[in-house]
């Protein structure tokens, strides 16, 4: 019986052989074509279009390389890319935001770059963010495609209508919460304060309240500062400063923004970040006036969280040389400057930051906001930078957002939520092979 099966298998394989031969022939025929570099790319605003435009120019200058820009939703990058990378598949380059979490899949470009020193000089502060813990100490594992900073966006027209002045630059979280609520009550806006439903967004406030998040290379999530940050969120949901309709409409660790609500002038104070500028330039246009404001203060700081997306080379690539050329082109000062000027992103490039970028916009709201954003980068707490560069920060983000939501919905007390957050963190580290206790 088994022998029979073996002969059958043999017969089937004989059948398949010509097909395999044909496929092999097709592959060799392809070799004469230009080298293909695939980029998995998500967009918040117009950066996909700008990138494609810049890549077209690159292809013209480098006919031996063809760059395919696979535009995907952000969810794909978060949920599918890790699996692809684990299985050794995936693109040659990817635009990612979990800089540290995926870093073991990145390729050190240093040996392939023409001018590695240019990267050392201009990207020194962000290069460590995506350097793997056991990687080369001076490795260049990618380049930021966008420096972001969390900060509040405020609908100033609503403040004017309510006749309430904007709290000043050193205003506290408490001041903003009270002012936003007062404005919303007056103008009947449904959402006085809104936060993106994300651990990253609520971390800035916790650091301002005195949270430390990490201790050396170990997570140290729950401390007094963190607790007062979380308590704010629970209290605001309880007293109507924040509406359950936003965070309550999804569960788990799912992201939920309030861009639509803000664009519809339903939100007074929106804790989001610099990446929203281009989008609001388009969706709000001249409907009302808005601007970014300085991050509110707590006892410890007045900081947001830095962050952003990086273009990272994937270790599994078959064409590291071509990949290096694409990255070097993108990071080169004129291209990088044009990219940021057109996308209205903050540059992670020291030289450009000093020089200042002449943003391509005539939207007064955006201009005002960009100026504040640049100022705010300088105000950002070192703890925030350190936490952003922490390889395992996503585990902490996930734990805090899912559990604080259970506390907000009344399923558990905040104290229970803290216990669960710590358990989640232990579990997450264990899955990565790190024992915490």
């Amino acid at each position: 019986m088994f022998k029979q099966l073996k002969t059958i298998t043999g017969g089937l394989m004989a059948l398949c052989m010509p097909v395999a031969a044909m496929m092999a022939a097709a592959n060799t025929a392809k070799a004469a074509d230009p080298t293909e570099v695939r980029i998995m790319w998500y967009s918040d605003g117009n950066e996909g279009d700008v990138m494609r435009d810049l890549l077209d120019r690159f292809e013209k200058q480098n006919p031996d390389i063809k760059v395919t820009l696979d535009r995907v939703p952000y969810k794909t990058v978060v949920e599918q890319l890790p699996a692809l990378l684990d299985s050794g598949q995936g693109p040659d380059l990817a635009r990612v935001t979990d800089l540290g979490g995926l870093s073991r899949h990145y390729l050190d470009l240093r040996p392939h770059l023409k001018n590695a020193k240019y990267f050392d000089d201009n990207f020194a502060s962000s290069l460590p963010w995506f350097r793997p813990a056991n990687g080369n100490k001076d490795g260049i594992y990618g380049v930021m495609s966008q420096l972001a900073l969390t900060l509040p966006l405020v609908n100033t027209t609503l403040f004017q209508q309510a006749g309430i002045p904007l709290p000043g630059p050193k205003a506290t979280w408490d001041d903003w919460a009270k002012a936003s609520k007062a404005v919303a009550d007056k103008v009947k806006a449904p959402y006085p304060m809104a936060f993106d439903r994300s651990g990253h967004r609520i971390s800035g406030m916790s650091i301002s309240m005195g949270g430390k998040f990490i201790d050396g290379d170990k997570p140290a999530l729950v401390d007094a500062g963190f607790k007062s940050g979380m308590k704010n969120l629970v209290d605001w949901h309880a007293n109507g400063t924040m509406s359950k309709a936003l965070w309550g409409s999804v569960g788990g660790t799912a992201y939920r923004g309030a861009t639509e609500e803000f664009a519809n002038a339903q939100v007074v104070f929106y804790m989001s970040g610099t990446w929203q500028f281009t989008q609001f330039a388009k969706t709000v246009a001249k409907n009302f006036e808005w601007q970014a404001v300085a991050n509110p203060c707590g006892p410890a700081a007045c900081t947001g969280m830095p962050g952003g997306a990086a273009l990272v080379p994937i270790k599994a690539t078959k064409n590291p040389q071509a990949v290096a050329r694409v990255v070097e082109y993108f990071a080169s000062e004129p291209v990088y400057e044009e990219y940021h000027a057109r996308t209205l992103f903050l540059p992670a490039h020291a030289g450009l930051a000093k020089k200042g970028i002449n943003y391509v916009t005539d939207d007064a709201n955006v201009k005002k906001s960009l100026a504040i954003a640049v100022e705010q980068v300088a105000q950002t707490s070192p703890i925030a930078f350190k936490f952003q560069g922490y390889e395992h920060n996503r585990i902490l983000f996930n734990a805090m957002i899912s559990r604080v939501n259970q506390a907000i919905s009344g399923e558990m007390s905040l104290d229970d939520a803290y216990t669960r957050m710590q358990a989640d963190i232990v579990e997450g580290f264990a899955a990565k092979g790190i024992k915490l206790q």
Partner: protein
Amino acid sequence: MKQNAQPPLDAEMSTTAERFSRGFALAYTGLMRALEPPFAAIQKRVGIKGMAYVFVAPNMIIFSVFVALPMILNIWYALTGSNRLMIGERPFVGLDNFSALLDCKDYLDVNSCKQDRFWRAVHNSVLFVALQVTAMVALSLVTALILNGKLRARGFFRAVFFFPVLLSPVVVALIWKWILQRDGLLNAFLMDGGFERVAFLHDASWSFFWTVFVSVWAHMGFYALILLAGLQAIPADLYEAAEMDGTPKWRVFWRITVPLLLPTLLVVVILSLIRAVQAFDEIYVLTGGGPGTATQFIVQYIYETAFANQVHLLGLAAAASLLVAVVLMVLTLLQLRISYHGKTS
């Protein structure tokens, strides 16, 4: 056999249909001739008996690749740890995932469980299944009884109740989200009527109610259709006999309709039970499992644990899905037993 006179083979004389069928026959013969040599060669190698396996092989290959293999992989994932996807990189942990899932001081108190989210999902699912199946069976039975009666525009109403079944679950969820959300249709009506706005999707009890409601709404037509077929299989003369026997209407229902519909009813109960345990798509889009974890059911827990969380706890999710599989298997066996029983009696 008597040879009929051949019609002239003139192309002009033949109709399009004839030409088509001749073309088809030609193509068929061509294909068969082309397949002849390779199959003859295989048969030479494996013998006439072996050919059976050759013909079954495509199906077996598809089954093993898409059904058997994933099942085995799932078991392997359940027995291994870490967030690695590649099987070779995953350390064997034995039954750790199962014991982590089942680690509870008190199964009725989710907060005493190590995997509180799993148990919240289990509790939610049990409540959901109980409410949803009860409502589903009761409402689809009432619908089937009404549709089986003398009704104006009966065909129209049968179609109306069946239409939601044809909708994609995501469409169903989006329609209802549009109706139920904070600024949705229902709240607009309420506020027009001078009522307060209700947080239909952001209040735990309301949103649980709506998950039950929407899933019943979406699938009831299917079960009503099965029950309708069951009702129509009951001979009309039994009802006439009961009428001659002077049977009151409610007694006809309980003593004639229900007992004779029982096999169908049981199939409906089991089917809707299995579907309720698997509930995911509409609810995920409608509430996302929120607020908090109020409407997070077991399948969503598995999905989020395995894929949506930043650290993919594949082992834990695989273990949970095996536990669900066991529950579903029991339910399915029950259904098979009942439908077999129904056929023999």
